[in-house]
């Protein structure tokens, strides 16, 4: 066991973890992040949900006027356990917006441009044929904002053999939705299907398989030619592709296509594995390394809380069957950003299961001592059925369960007192909100990550 010391140690390499590590580094000091397996962040679509007017989550019409800061005020009244509401005790809505801007700035520094604005929602098509309402997204996706469909002549390109994406359906559904939301349909919308060289016979390509194929210069070249031939004479203003335009060389692929086709090119969010999600995580990881943050590939096994410093036991050199090498890292501040059920920060166990915290019910897996709460109260024991409701349309309590924090993002014990002065939480491990239904997954991860790292 070797000893290392840092001023800040972040556990968990999702959007929350990396934002925390980067902001802690910006605030000064030596920072390490333990980042093991991918979590929810690498599955997110590349569309950044930051907030939604709590009363209108399921509304189809776009709210006339509502900005991020206005929504913060609405949320703090309607959802008192939302981390935004808790942070509101110490930070103004403008400061929270700055946190999001900072996350977008990190992405830009890492070579991923973003688009959008804080005071309006974009309308972004997706492969399910619906529209996503969001303020920010990766630029390649944001460029597809259906702000004025009447001015868009759109060619939707599908890929032969890539089954999760039906251009005809997306075109028909997109047009119908545009009519209902904006009152006007697309000036023109057509669908095409194009084969990728070398994969003509495949009938089940995955997102990453297409993306890696398109990373090859020669394959994209041939692909661009076929697309151009298909859309020739259509006088389109935009072409839309599934969000698979390159994994490593996406910038070259997208700008190359736009240049060759001579019209705007954008990406439509698709299902998992999410190529934009992987791009985001790769970018954050390389930015962290570049900024002098120590990125440790491994798993944190335990956190022990002394008087001032706290330390974590890390097992590194990940392997499937080998004996891991253990090391101990002491830090002035430990930020737990281990995510929820996907990241593994929270698990549901049955009595006798081999997980921390005894096993029964919902437990926090890293320390085992932070209680999981629903609406501010610790949930004890019980089976999964205690946390779900029978109909899909209703909110599912299980998706709002998580750690309860104070305005400094310190996790609270059952009595509502901080577990340790120097322990913080960030991201979806914090409860009180449903990241998907509440349309604030990336936003909450970035805001809590930023403040946890900064302070």
């Amino acid at each position, binding site marked *: 066991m070797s000893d290392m010391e840092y001023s800040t140690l972040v556990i968990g390499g999702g959007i929350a973890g990396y934002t925390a590590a980067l902001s802690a580094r910006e605030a000064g000091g030596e920072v390490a992040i333990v980042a093991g*397996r991918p979590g929810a962040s690498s599955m997110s679509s590349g569309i950044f949900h930051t907030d939604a007017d709590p009363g209108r989550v399921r509304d189809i019409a776009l709210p006339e006027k509502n900005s991020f800061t206005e929504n913060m005020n609405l949320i703090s009244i309607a959802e008192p356990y939302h981390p935004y509401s808790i942070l509101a005790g110490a930070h103004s809505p403008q400061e929270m917006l700055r946190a999001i801007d900072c996350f977008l700035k990190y992405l830009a520094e890492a070579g991923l441009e973003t688009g959008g604005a804080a005071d309006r929602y974009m309308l972004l098509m997706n492969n399910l044929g619906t529209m996503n309402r969001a303020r920010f997204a990766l630029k390649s996706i944001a460029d597809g904002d259906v702000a004025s469909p009447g001015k868009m002549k759109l060619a939707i390109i599908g890929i032969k053999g890539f089954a999760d994406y039906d251009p005809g359906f997306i075109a028909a559904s997109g047009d119908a939705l545009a009519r209902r939301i904006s009152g006007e349909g697309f000036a023109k919308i057509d669908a095409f299907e194009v084969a990728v060289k070398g*994969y003509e*016979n495949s009938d089940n390509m995955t997102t990453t398989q297409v993306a890696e194929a398109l990373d090859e210069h020669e394959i994209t070249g041939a692909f661009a030619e076929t697309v151009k031939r298909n859309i020739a004479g259509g006088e389109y203003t935009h072409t839309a592709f599934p969000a698979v335009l390159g994994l490593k060389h996406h910038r070259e692929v997208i700008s190359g296509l736009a240049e060759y086709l001579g019209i705007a090119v954008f990406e439509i969010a698709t299902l998992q594995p999410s190529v934009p999600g992987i791009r985001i995580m790769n970018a954050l990881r390389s930015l962290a390394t570049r900024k002098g943050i120590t990125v440790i590939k491994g798993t944190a096994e335990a956190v022990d809380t002394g008087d001032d410093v706290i330390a974590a036991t890390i097992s590194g050199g990940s392997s*499937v069957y080998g004996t891991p090498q253990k090391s101990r890292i002491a830090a002035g501040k430990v930020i737990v950003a281990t995510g929820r059920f996907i990241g593994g920060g929270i698990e549901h166990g049955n009595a006798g299961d081999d997980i921390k915290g005894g096993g029964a019910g919902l437990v926090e897996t890293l320390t085992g001592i932070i209680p999981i709460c629903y609406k501010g109260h610790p949930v004890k024991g019980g089976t999964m059925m205690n946390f779900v409701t029978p109909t899909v349309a209703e909110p599912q309590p299980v998706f709002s369960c998580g750690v309860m924090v104070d305005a400094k993002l310190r996790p609270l014990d059952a009595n509502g007192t901080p577990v340790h002065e120097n322990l913080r939480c960030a991201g979806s491990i914090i409860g009180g909100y449903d990241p998907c239904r509440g349309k604030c997954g990336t936003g909450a991860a970035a805001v809590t990550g930023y403040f946890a790292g900064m302070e």
Partner: protein
Amino acid sequence: MRLDSKSLEAIGNLAYRFWAHVFRRAVRKPGQGEELAAFRKNYLPDKLEPLTGSERALLLDSQRCVNCGTCTSVCPVVDSARDGFYRGPGSITAALTRSFPDFGAARDAVYNCTQCARCAIECPRGIDIPGLILAARHKTVQVADIGMMKSYNTIVEKLAVSGNIYGKPCDRFSSYIKPRADVVFFAGCVGRNETVSDTILTIGLLEALKVDFTMIEEYCCGGFHRSIGIDLKTNEGVRKNIDAIIATGAKKVVTGCPHGFEVMKSCEPYGTEFKENNITVEHITEFLRGLEFEAAAEDGLRAAYHDPCFLGRRNGVYDIPRELIKKAGVEIVELPDTREESLCCGSKIGTFVLDSGVSDAIAEKRMKQVRESGVGLLLTACPGCLSVFENTEHDGIEIESVAGFLAKRCSDKNKVEW
């Protein structure tokens, strides 16, 4: 009822079928009994073997799959199988868990895995996908006829004939067999039959370093059986290996091949037998690190190191081979996919992918990374990888094993003759 010619024909047909059916029982046709016996053989005991504890645990564990597709996105076989015949580890997990396991149906998929374990490292839920696939292969062999898989049949026959996958006995190394020694050096099928010169170098190094070692009359460690799905516990060759090793009185087995390393370290019956006899297993790189010697490479030599899946990702040995390489003063150039994320060599002779064209494509992809890294030397620590890369277009890039490389560059004190 109106009777036209069509309905008459139909009624006549029905009547004929009815009487034919009734009288069929009375007339015995030749061969009928055999069919029944065949039917009974295949279907009556439905061949569904009960799950063992570990198989049950694996299956339950895989229920945690969230269908995110991460495994598929990192799978080298999926990446190289362009016609889509392989739907990836995720599809296997889904096939084996979402309904009652139908191992026969998942057969083609489970036999296209290289066991590189990249999926298991990346799985957000930490599911042991390669373990699940091995269990599924084991079941496939139990419930389906091994004869169904033609390409495997020949390998199984060869293993039965000679105890190795090359189908003929190998006495090349008999002169190194001693009755007793401190250490047993287990070279493995590929090392004895294919990458022979590298094995000779390794042996030379052990001799030069005055290691009291012996070799044994080797049979396949069981790695090949295991990857096909054949039980090791009743395997004759495995039994003979264990007996021969114990008979030497050695307390350490050093394997030249990471596959043998994993099998002897963690598979039964080796595990129990070795534990009872206080025998430990090390890979040759781990063993060499414990020895004192000096080596010096040519000035300014830069080399890439390819992490073998069975050494790195599966068993966590990443740093030791690198330490050994640096010891000789070589600068290591890390390939784009390295350590936990190392790219599989395609495992053409390791774990058998049904489609060898896919293996070749993976090996080619890896070699491309090596070429683009601009090194003149590629080092690895697995005879399987070594042989695969030697048979891949490598544009004059030298390919050596870490042990073989050190043997050639040992200082005069421990000079190895070669």
